[in-house]
């Protein structure tokens, strides 16, 4: 045990000046010590710290996750639209309002094909023939599947893919052969093409030669079976007025083509021709997704608000429980501002902890779910930065009142508690 007198070498680093100027320099608390004191306060109550940060974690994770998933889904849809092309138009009779017959003339395909910027055109004709799995099934049990006569260019026009077997050719289109849409194949229980598998269509046996993948731009066609036009006229003596026309144009001229299509398709009743752009539907779906995103963001914001109230509550309790510590710090020379700063920093640390954990969980959820769905993983930087900033802002607001209350506490009152 060493002996030690006031002012001896233990304090050699204290400047040797008159006491009044040296000693009444204002109290100072280094920024690192503010953080240290705040971290010490939280470290002493680990469970409470974790639970109160959890509210913020859930709120931020929800917001980051929703934004991340929404962006990933949007990016995936955009990529899909890009791949499918936005230069596809569909032409349909609009159903006979105003006295029309709701039927497009048979020569529509050849007339539309002559429009300069049109690259490809194909039509389908809905047939009055019930497709059945076999001749033992009742004629009503078609599973809501239509039979259609299809142009050979249909697959190329719609950028469709064959899942199994082949698409119709000049040869197979003239004879009783059928290709199934994706949903139709599923309904009939056809998973693979076996040579000689047949189905019963309009009272005749047709050989199944292929199954298609889904048509993202024309989901109606997934619920159809397709035969060639020659077979349709030969077997059913069908009239070949197009039910729907699919028109692929040069991308730059799509609006111009859209303008002339009604009068080209049906010069006598252009008003009864309906033109649509299938990618508009996907874009509308994207807009609908945005509405859901806003809803979930709102829920995340509510969770965040509740988390903020939780932090404020915990900080108010901390101020009450730690009155002695506040009194001690004032006795050791802390100014009111130092106490205020310590408790505010404690609240900020708490919310930063919750925010960081929330951002991490939100990113993990986005990554996991988007990967599972096969989407492009997009983690918006604005969601990460914004989420963390929101957590900090909540911490600042939640900590302000408790910090001011701690700072207002008189030293004698705090030490007496």
């Amino acid at each position, binding site marked *: *045990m*060493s*002996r*030690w*007198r*006031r*002012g*001896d070498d*233990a*304090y050699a*680093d*204290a400047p*040797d*000046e*008159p*006491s*009044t100027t*040296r*000693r*009444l*320099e*204002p*109290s*100072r*608390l*280094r920024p*690192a*010590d503010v953080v240290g*004191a705040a971290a*010490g306060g939280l*470290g*002493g109550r680990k469970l409470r710290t974790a639970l109160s940060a959890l509210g913020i974690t859930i709120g931020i994770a929800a917001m980051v996750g929703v934004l991340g998933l929404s962006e990933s889904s949007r990016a995936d849809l955009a990529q899909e639209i890009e791949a499918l092309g936005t230069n596809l138009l569909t032409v349909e009779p609009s159903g006979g309002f105003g006295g029309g017959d709701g039927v497009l003339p048979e020569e529509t395909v050849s007339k539309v094909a002559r429009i300069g910027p049109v690259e490809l055109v194909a039509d389908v004709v809905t047939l009055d023939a019930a497709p059945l799995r076999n001749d033992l099934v009742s004629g009503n049990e078609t599973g809501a599947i239509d039979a259609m006569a299809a142009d050979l260019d249909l697959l190329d026009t719609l950028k469709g893919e064959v899942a199994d077997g082949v698409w119709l050719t000049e040869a197979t289109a003239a004879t009783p052969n059928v290709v199934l849409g994706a949903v139709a194949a599923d309904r009939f229980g056809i998973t693979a093409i076996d040579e000689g598998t047949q189905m019963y269509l309009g009272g005749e046996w047709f050989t199944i030669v292929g199954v298609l993948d889904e048509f993202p731009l024309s989901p109606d066609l997934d619920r159809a079976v397709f035969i060639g036009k020659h077979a349709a006229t030969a077997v059913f003596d069908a009239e070949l007025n197009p039910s729907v026309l699919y028109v692929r144009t040069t991308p730059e001229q799509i609006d111009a083509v859209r303008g002339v299509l009604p009068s080209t398709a049906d010069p006598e009743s252009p008003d009864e021709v309906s033109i649509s752009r299938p990618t508009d539907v996907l874009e509308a779906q994207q807009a609908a997704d945005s509405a859901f995103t806003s809803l979930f963001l709102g829920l995340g914001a509510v969770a965040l608000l509740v988390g903020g109230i939780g932090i404020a509550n915990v900080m108010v309790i901390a101020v009450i429980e730690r009155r*002695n*510590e506040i*009194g*001690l*710090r*004032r*006795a*050791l*020379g*802390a*100014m*009111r501002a*130092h106490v205020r700063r310590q408790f505010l920093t404690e609240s900020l640390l708490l919310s930063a902890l919750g925010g960081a954990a929330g951002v991490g969980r939100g990113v993990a959820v986005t990554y996991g779910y988007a990967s599972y769905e096969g989407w492009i993983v997009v983690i918006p930087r604005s969601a990460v930065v914004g989420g963390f900033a929101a957590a900090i802002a909540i911490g600042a607001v939640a900590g302000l009142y408790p910090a001011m209350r701690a700072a207002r506490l*008189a*030293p*004698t009152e705090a*030490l007496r508690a």
Partner: protein
Amino acid sequence: MTGMNAHHPSRPPALELVDVVKEYPGTPPVRALDGVSLRVDTGELVAIVGPSGSGKSTMLQVMGTLDRPTSGAVMVDGIELSTLTDRKLSAARARLIGFVFQQFFLLDGATAVENVSNGLLYSGASKHTRLRRAARALDRVGLRHRLHHHPNEMSGGERQRVAIARALVHDPAIVLADEPTGNLDSASSESVVSLLRDLHDEGRTIVVITHDRDLAASLPRQVAVRDGRRDESASHLVGVAGAGS
């Protein structure tokens, strides 16, 4: 003794109260201190003794700038403190005054050396400097072997020694000890009082507030307080009145 004294040949008293009044609002107002004057010279070890409710705790709060007097002057190391702003009072506590409390007030999550270094926390000293000086202060109070122990690993006497080291670590002009043995058994009390005496021998200025007349009697000077006033008639009797009073 120090370079500071070279600038101040006639050193001011470590502590001086001049006609201090402290009233708490109420109907009627409560006058806890009623014109108390007191001078404590540098290097003195003084006991302020009085029964419960005599005003001695209020006196400690006023001397330690934890509370302001209603009127009168409080000077520590020659600096008039009663009119200073709250910021300046904080500075005075950080640099001129050391406190020892009956309840120790150590932070449970911090080690002994960290608790002592908190005595310098608001001085602006670096962490390295604080810890170095805290280790030295703990060495001085005989706890070199306890630097990294937490308060819950120490006896009551050891905890109070840590608190004393914390009060000394910033080299204050005066140490104010409020019932320093109030929470201790007799053996620990004796060792703490012995430490205070040693520190006095080394030139420290210490004021001990106590209701324990035996403790007061064992210190070189006693100031008796009763009903908010100095009880001059009792001050010289404390020593002879002993435990039976």
